[in-house]
């Protein structure tokens, strides 16, 4: 995954960049399966690898598929990135260990959800129960965000100009998520 990301930095041809970005998303989905997050993996594979790639390709078709010159100012950003990364890694030193069952995150509301989902909702999938039932307002807000984005896209490029509303079907699919 990191190799794919690094290749993305180097590549000039935007078509290859888009394809690699899709691959990156699929690798992320595989990683989620390994980490027991099957629902997230589904969404990432469908939305991240699928719809995002379609959107990017549509943009390429409307614009250009070749990046111009190499970035001239490489040193300063590199230094900034390395410094930020070093600070962040220093910040992880006190974090709970990977897979630690006693980490604070696992002791707050998560046990409640795991215990109550069966009796409360009768659903076997806890993620679905939390998404649609316990935290339903989050999902409502998410729908509002998608609606706003769809309206924004249509206002920006939906008018009678040459680039027609080619992303409308993708937006519909997203709303179904």
């Amino acid at each position, binding site marked *: *995954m*990191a190799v794919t*990301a690094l290749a*993305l930095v180097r590549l000039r041809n935007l078509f290859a960049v*888009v394809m690699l*970005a899709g691959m990156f*998303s699929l690798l*992320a989905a595989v*990683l*989620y399966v390994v980490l*027991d*997050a*099957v629902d*997230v993996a589904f*969404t*990432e594979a469908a*939305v991240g690898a699928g719809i*995002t790639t379609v*959107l*990017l390709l*549509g*943009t*390429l078709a*409307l*614009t*250009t598929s070749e*990046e*111009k010159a190499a*970035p001239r100012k490489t040193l300063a*950003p590199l230094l900034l990135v*390395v410094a930020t*990364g070093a600070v962040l*890694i220093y910040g*992880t030193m006190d*974090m709970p*260990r*990977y*897979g*630690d*069952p006693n*980490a604070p*995150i*696992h002791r707050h509301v*998560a046990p409640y959800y*795991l215990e109550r*989902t069966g009796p409360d909702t009768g659903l*076997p*999938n*806890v*993620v679905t129960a939390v998404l649609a039932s316990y*935290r339903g307002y989050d999902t409502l807000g998410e729908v509002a*965000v*998608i609606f*706003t*984005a769809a309206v*924004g*896209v249509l206002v*920006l490029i939906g008018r009678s100009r040459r680039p027609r509303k080619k*992303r409308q079907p993708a937006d519909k699919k*997203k709303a179904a998520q």
Partner: protein
Amino acid sequence: MEFPGLYNYWIAIVLMMVGFYIVIAHDNLIKKVVGLNIFQVSVFVFYISMAKVRGGTAPILEAGIETYSNPLPHVLILTAIVVAVATTALALALVVRIRNAYGTIEDDEIEGQEDDA
């Protein structure tokens, strides 16, 4: 502090820094959007790896299984992925409009045109 079980955070940080570098070092707007996507995925990986419990399984209730991964980060990231696509779509629409207005999607060329005007 021997080599502890912190590598999941470090992977997320490396990915995040790669995305950050693409965003600030490249002039091409589409490439910046892709970099932003990598940045977002790194945050997702961070959350999902925190949700993992050693010896746990996916949070789908089944008789005879005691340990599950934490479902809450999964829910949050499900929402975040969809929102990420919404923002990506909006950003790409803006890129298309910029291309129509300036004839280029390179940041420095746009700035040059602004200076001339």
